[in-house]
């Protein structure tokens, strides 16, 4: 049997090349990490029929079914159709599997549907974003987290979306029990203080986590009608310069956040280095090259931020620079004067 497979095309079709010759792994996309039981059963069936009966849970809330023979790709794709439809993922010809793999699965924490601290429906936003940007070959990572706890680790993504609520205070319902003060300080940033028996919120310090609302026993604190978002930009892991995403917007509206993400694809079309290995670059490295201003020219096109929204004046990213130094022993600060 002649084995001549266009691996580039397989990868685009969401199959991982395996270290075992003749094998691939099927990558199942699950926007927001929500899958119905029937689809989950189908994942099991594929693993049993075409794999070795094991399934990997990926970091980005998808599945990877390993040890599939390359020849079985088409049959697996047919079986994937049910999952693709049930998870409502955009696709081309039915039965041909996923049309792209570059733009990664959109991750979401449990959010307001389950978590008492969730400030918005993370799963719904993940589904909406996925519809908006998939399929696409650009390597883009997006994650949605319900509140500043950041259980979804969104700061390691190109776009990290953090829910916020603007606490509303009704002094007439406040009994001065100071539980909001205590919990804001213990579980959050300590933005509240007591003045003459009533509560004052330091609006600069407040991160909109909603902890005060959660602990107020009288509904003196309630949540704002509007759901707000903090947008983190261009965090990443990796070999060269892993770094946390930095604050770009706070108190932003959902529409603006979605638009910025969509606009970024135009920027990538124009600036992606096609000579990069597999034409795959983290957006952050491209922005390092073109400068933030140029990136924002694209990203902010037709974006009208709400009156409450604050935008970063400048953006700097830190993180490790393995490409500059990887020396631990000779680092500046020492724990002791131990002999080397």
């Amino acid at each position, binding site marked *: 049997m002649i084995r001549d497979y266009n691996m580039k095309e397989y990868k685009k079709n969401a199959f991982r090349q395996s270290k075992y010759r003749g094998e691939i792994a099927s990558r199942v996309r699950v926007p927001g990490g929500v899958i119905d039981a029937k689809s989950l059963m189908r994942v099991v069936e594929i693993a049993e029929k075409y794999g070795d009966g094991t399934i990997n849970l990926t970091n980005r809330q998808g599945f990877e079914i390993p040890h599939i023979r390359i020849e079985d790709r088409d049959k697996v794709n047919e079986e994937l159709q049910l999952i693709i439809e049930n998870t409502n993922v955009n696709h081309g010809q039915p039965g041909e599997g996923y049309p792209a793999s570059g733009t990664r699965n959109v991750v979401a924490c449990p959010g307001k549907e389950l978590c008492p601290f969730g400030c918005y429906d993370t799963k719904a936003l993940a589904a909406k974003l996925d519809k908006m940007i998939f399929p696409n070959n650009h390597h883009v990572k997006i994650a949605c987290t319900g509140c500043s706890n950041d259980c979804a680790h969104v700061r390691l993504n190109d776009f990290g979306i953090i829910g916020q609520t603007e606490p509303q205070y009704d002094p007439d319902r406040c*009994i001065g029990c100071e539980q909001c003060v205590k919990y804001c300080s213990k579980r959050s940033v300590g933005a509240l203080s007591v003045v*003459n028996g009533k509560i004052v919120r330091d609006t600069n310090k407040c991160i909109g986590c909603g902890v005060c609302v959660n602990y107020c*026993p009288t509904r003196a604190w309630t949540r704002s009608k509007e759901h707000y978002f903090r947008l983190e930009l261009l965090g990443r892991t990796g070999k060269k310069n892993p770094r946390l995403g930095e604050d770009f917007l706070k108190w932003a509206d959902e529409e603006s956040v979605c638009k910025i993400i969509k606009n970024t694809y135009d920027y990538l079309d124009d600036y992606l280095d096609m000579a990069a290995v597999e034409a795959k670059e983290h957006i952050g490295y491209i922005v390092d090259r073109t400068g933030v201003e140029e990136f924002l020219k694209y990203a902010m096109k037709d974006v009208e931020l709400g009156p409450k929204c604050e935008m970063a004046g400048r953006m700097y990213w830190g993180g490790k620079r393995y490409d500059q130094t990887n020396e631990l022993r000779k680092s500046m600060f020492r724990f002791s004067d131990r002999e080397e």
Partner: protein
Amino acid sequence: MGYTLTRSEFDQVLSELGKNYRLYAPVLKIGQGRFTDTDVVIYDFISESSEIELEKKSDFSFKEILTPLSQTLFFFTENVIKEADIDCSDAIIFLRSCDMHAVKRLDQIYLNNGKHVDPFYKKVRDHVKFVLIGCPGSFQECFCVSMGTNKTDDGYLFALNYSGDQFDVDVKDAALNELFEKAGAAAKEVAVDYVTENETKVTIPETVPNSIYQSDLWKEYDKRCVACGRCNLVCPTCTCFTMQDAFYTDNGKVGERRRVGGSCMIDGYSTVAGGGQYRRKHGERMRFKVLHKIYDFRKRYGYDMCVGCGRCDDVCPEYISFSNIINKVNAEVKEGE
């Protein structure tokens, strides 16, 4: 007299009443619950029937109208004191049977507890009348039948049964008959709905021996209860308050005295000068609350304080059931006999 009315006829009655009374009823506050996009039912002004939340139990009780969560009592300067203007225009409160019984408890504490009448309470209370909302069924956690508060026969202007767009009323105050008739209400025999059985039942021990104070039963709550006080703040019969003297920051000689809601479960309640605390452990606070509700109050006034509305069970974030504690106390008392 009994009447049956359509929604628009009933609204006409409300609009007539609204000319002379502030109307208070349970209102669904959209998005104002603890969690994102959840609601809460709190008492507020209403002007028409659609604003009244009739399908749900109110999370917070009517008591906030009679005893506001935060109320300025007076203002002071160096040697002058001026009482705060309290809105004591006539008001009507829509409430259910258990809460009607709670009014009696509030009156007991603020009006008939020793020599002194609370003037701030009295001012408001003297101008308040009630409308009884019928209960077609028991809500979760209600135990009004066990507490004998499921039924109320007097003390209200009229009682109200509701079903979709139909409102049936049993008018007690004959002066109101004309108002209903003018709105086009048809005469009908009406008996207000009340529940005769709750899923939750409690048995209150007749006497509680002193040994119960030392019982291990309370220990569990040292850890389980987080002392948030929600159970007190939603309770229609909790009457504790605390005082705040606020000196205005730009002139420390001028200020106001406020009365704010208190809670025997929250830190600081039993703190005395010098920082001493009588009930440091949460289990001890629980013991105090429970015995007050089902025993100590009765020793003084002859009836129990708790009316079995179940709001404390509804609200507890730690799923501590007050009704279950009552039954545990009862079992322990029985065992000791």
